[in-house]
Every structure is written in C-alpha cells, then in structure tokens.
C-alpha cells in the first residue's frame, strides 16, 4: 500500500527559522529519506513554496480564481497532482480542465520549491 504523508506546520513559525536552523532540520530529514530511498520505498517528496505564492481555483460555474491558499475547512484534502507548467496561467488552465471533468470543491495551486521524483513501484 502506498501512503501519502502530508506535512502540516505553522508557516510563520517555520518561516522564522534561521538559515542554519532550516538547514539543520533539512539535514535530519534527508537522513530519514535516504534510508527509505535505499529500500526503494520512497516516492516523490516535495517542499512547497509559502502559501503567499498560492492561488486557489474554486470549481464553481464559472470557476473563480482567488489569491492565496485554500482556506475553508468544510472540504477535505482528497488528492493532488504535480504538473510541469511554464507559469501560473498554464497551471490554472490545467486546473480548469481538471475542474471541468470533476466540478465542485477547489484546487489550490502552489508552486513546488524542492522536488525529488523518488523511485517506488506501485
């Protein structure tokens, strides 16, 4: 079974780490990741850019583009995509296509800062 592990933390808090603190945490995490990778059990890993870089597409009819992250609490996170796009407009176009296929709810579009594709057989 593949499991997704979703990371939550206070962004302000993580944002106020010094460069050294941030690097120290990342080094510790890499140790854990490498162990998994050697066993062939690590899939894609991503560190997202801050929520200030996020845009949300409400899948209403017509879809509505809002600045900022998805802030409602009544829906639940059901899945995610990682898509290679030239810019935000292109990413929004992809999200609109997906939304047309599956209306309702919303997509939060967030640029990925660090991405390791990983290597795992499903």
């Amino acid at each position, binding site marked *: 079974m593949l499991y997704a592990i979703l990371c939550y933390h206070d962004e302000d808090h993580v944002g106020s*780490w010094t460069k050294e603190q941030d690097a120290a945490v990342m080094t510790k995490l890499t140790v854990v990741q490498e162990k998994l990778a050697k066993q062939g059990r690590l899939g894609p890993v991503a560190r997202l850019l*801050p929520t200030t870089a996020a845009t949300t597409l409400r899948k209403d009819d017509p879809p509505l583009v809002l*600045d900022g992250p998805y802030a409602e609490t009544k829906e639940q996170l059901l899945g995610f995509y990682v898509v290679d796009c030239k810019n935000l407009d292109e990413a929004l176009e992809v999200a609109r296509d997906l939304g047309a296929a599956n209306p309702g709810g919303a997509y939060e579009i967030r640029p990925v800062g660090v991405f390791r594709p990983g290597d795992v057989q499903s």
Partner: protein
Amino acid sequence: MTDTAWIDAALTSARPQAVGALLRYFRNLDTAEEAFQNACLRALKSWPQNGPPRDPAAWLIMVGRNVAIDDLRRSKKQEALPEDEAISDLDDAEEQLAERLDGSHYRDDILRLLFICCHPDLPATQQIALALRIVSGLTVKQIARAFLVSEAAMEQRITRAKARVADADVPFETPGAVERSERLTSVAAMIYLIFNEGYSASGDTAEIRSPLCEEAIRLARLLLRLFQSEPEIMGLTALLLLQHARAAARFDADGAVILLDDQDRSLWNKSLIAEGLALIDKAMRHRRSGPYQVQAAIAALHARAEKPEDTDWTQIDLLYGALEIMQPSPVVTLNRAVAVSKVKGPEAALDMIEPLAQRLSNYFHYFGVRGAFLMQLGRNDEARTAFDRAIALANTSAEAAHIRMHLDRLQRDSQPRGKKAGK
C-alpha cells in the same frame, strides 16, 4: 534545533500579532511592549513543561493583557486616581478572547503596528529602527550592529522615535478602505527601506547587514498573507526575494562589488528566485501594474537569464520606460540608459543621460555609468574624468574599488606596451 529554539521561533512569529493586539487594548506602545515581554517570560517557564499552546499568539495576548491589567490596578491603588480610558477596550477584549482571536481584527492590528513606525515626522532611519525593534523584536544590540552604530546611539535613536510616536495621534478605530490602502502604501515603502538598508551594504559589511534583508522579506511575506490580493504587495515581496537571491554572488572575496554581468549565477538562490517569479506571475494576472511590480518584473528578467547574454534587454528597456511614467526620476532614466546601451549602443545611452547631468551632479552612479559609456566609445580622457568624479562621490569603499578597476584598465590600455610594469 535545540529544545528551546522552537520557543524562540514561536515567540518571534507571534510577536507582530500579539503586540498589535495588546496595543489596541492599551493604546500605549510601552504598555503593549511590556505586556508582551512579561507574557514571553511566562511562556519560557510554562511552555517547556506544558508544551506549546494551540495558538501561541492568543496565549501571549491573553497572558500579557492579564499581567498588564494587574500592574495597572496595582499602580492605580498607589496613585489613587483611576484612569479608566487606559483600559477602556477591555470588555470588548474579553469577548473576543473568549472566542479565541477574531481574524479580521488582527490584520488591522498588525498593519497599525507597522504603520505607527512610518510616522511622517520620523526620518527614514528612525522608522526602520523602530519597526525592527517593535514589530520584529530585534534587540537594540542586533539593530545597532546592523546599522553599524554603537548600542548607546541606537538606544537613543529608538527612544527618541518612540517618544515622537507616543505624541502622535494614532487612529485606533478600524480603518476604512481608503485609509487602509494609504497605510499599506506607507508600510510597503518602509519595508522597502529596511531591505535597502541591508542591500546597499558594501562587501565587508554585507554579512552583518543581511539580516535586515531577511527581516524585510519576512515582513513583506507577513503583509502579503494579510492582504492576499494586493498586486503591489506581491510585487514588493517578489522584488525583495529576487534581489536577495543574488546576495551570495554580489561581492568578491575582497569585498569588491561584482556587477550583474560578471556574477557567478550558480550562486544565485534558486528557491528565492522561484518564489519571486511565482509571485510576479500572480501579480500580473491582476492587470493593475505599479512600481514594485515593474521593478520586480525587471529583476525577474535578470533572474531568468542563465547567462548574461540571454538577458532580454529590450523588455527591460520597455519596463524602465513604464517605470519612468509611473515614477519619473532621473535615477530611473539612468537605469534605463543601461538597458538602452545594450539594445541601441553606448552613443544612444549617452544621449539619454546627458540631460540628467545637472540633477545627478552629486550622484555616484551617474558618473560610474557615464564613464562606462564613454569608455565603450573609446573616449578615454572623458571617461577618466567621469570615473575620477565617481570615486570622489563613492559611498562605500567597495564602490570606489570598483571604479578604480576601470581606471586601472584605462591606464593599462593607454600605456604603450613594455612600460606596463613601470610605475
């Protein structure tokens, strides 16, 4: 991270919101700051034992407020006469805290806190020092170090600024849309000043001063989280990120300036660039351009170029043209001339800056740029005159060193071969 480092990080990140709320309750900056300090002291005792509270800012506001009220009551007994207006907002506050924190308030709390520091009577350096002390919570020692002044001088500067702010009328009611947007503009300008204070450092002080750039970025991100749909705040944040991304490549080992064209681009911080570019993308969708967005777009064109020769100078020229219309200034025209020199050659660029001579007669960069154009045209004597003037006007030793490099080159070029080694 050590065991208590998470507490420091939590206190730092909660600070603007907590001090902003306490300021709204007590309407006095000193009381608010003191209340926050006291709350932090209690947090240091309580959090390691009980773990972090769910909402650290709410915890600090509640505890800070209670401690301060106790203090006020105690001093009231001593002074006999009650000062009700000092705590007039309290009933209201209890209600709000009962339902934890009201999100819509805290946006204006933080904006107010930042806005107080932008008081127009305060010179720019005092605005910055005040914001770093009050909003960011840097110690006087840290600020003094970043400003390269003594601790005593900085202490005095901050005390003076606080006194002036205390005398000023700070409107505590929720601002209207127009007022909010005016506050936002002042605050954005102040954050830009903080950044520049760090960015304009010379090579030997860049390391010491870079915390100013990082703090400015933190404040810009904070502001953007509060005002998510303001394209100019996106532009400001993007501009700071894109400029700061080049920090590691801007000076050589001796602290001399390395110009954009000569920088080792592999040293640029890719993650900051990615974030800056993402924000520009977001801002552009609003089709409400402004000076920060245009400057960020220019920085983005540099950031996108993997090699200097890939730079889209035509587009940069156009963007500077747009900036000239929004914010006419000889300095903007001077920057545009550099782009023009790449697109149309040094002759055209020189024609463009000729009319600026009088207004920029004391501006280092004017003579540096002029000298470079003249040198490209082979007018070496005139170039030398311009460079001499630039050295006389240099603000930092790094600037002077950079111009001296040009002069040395002129010297070498003009000397007949074989005499090179002679002095």
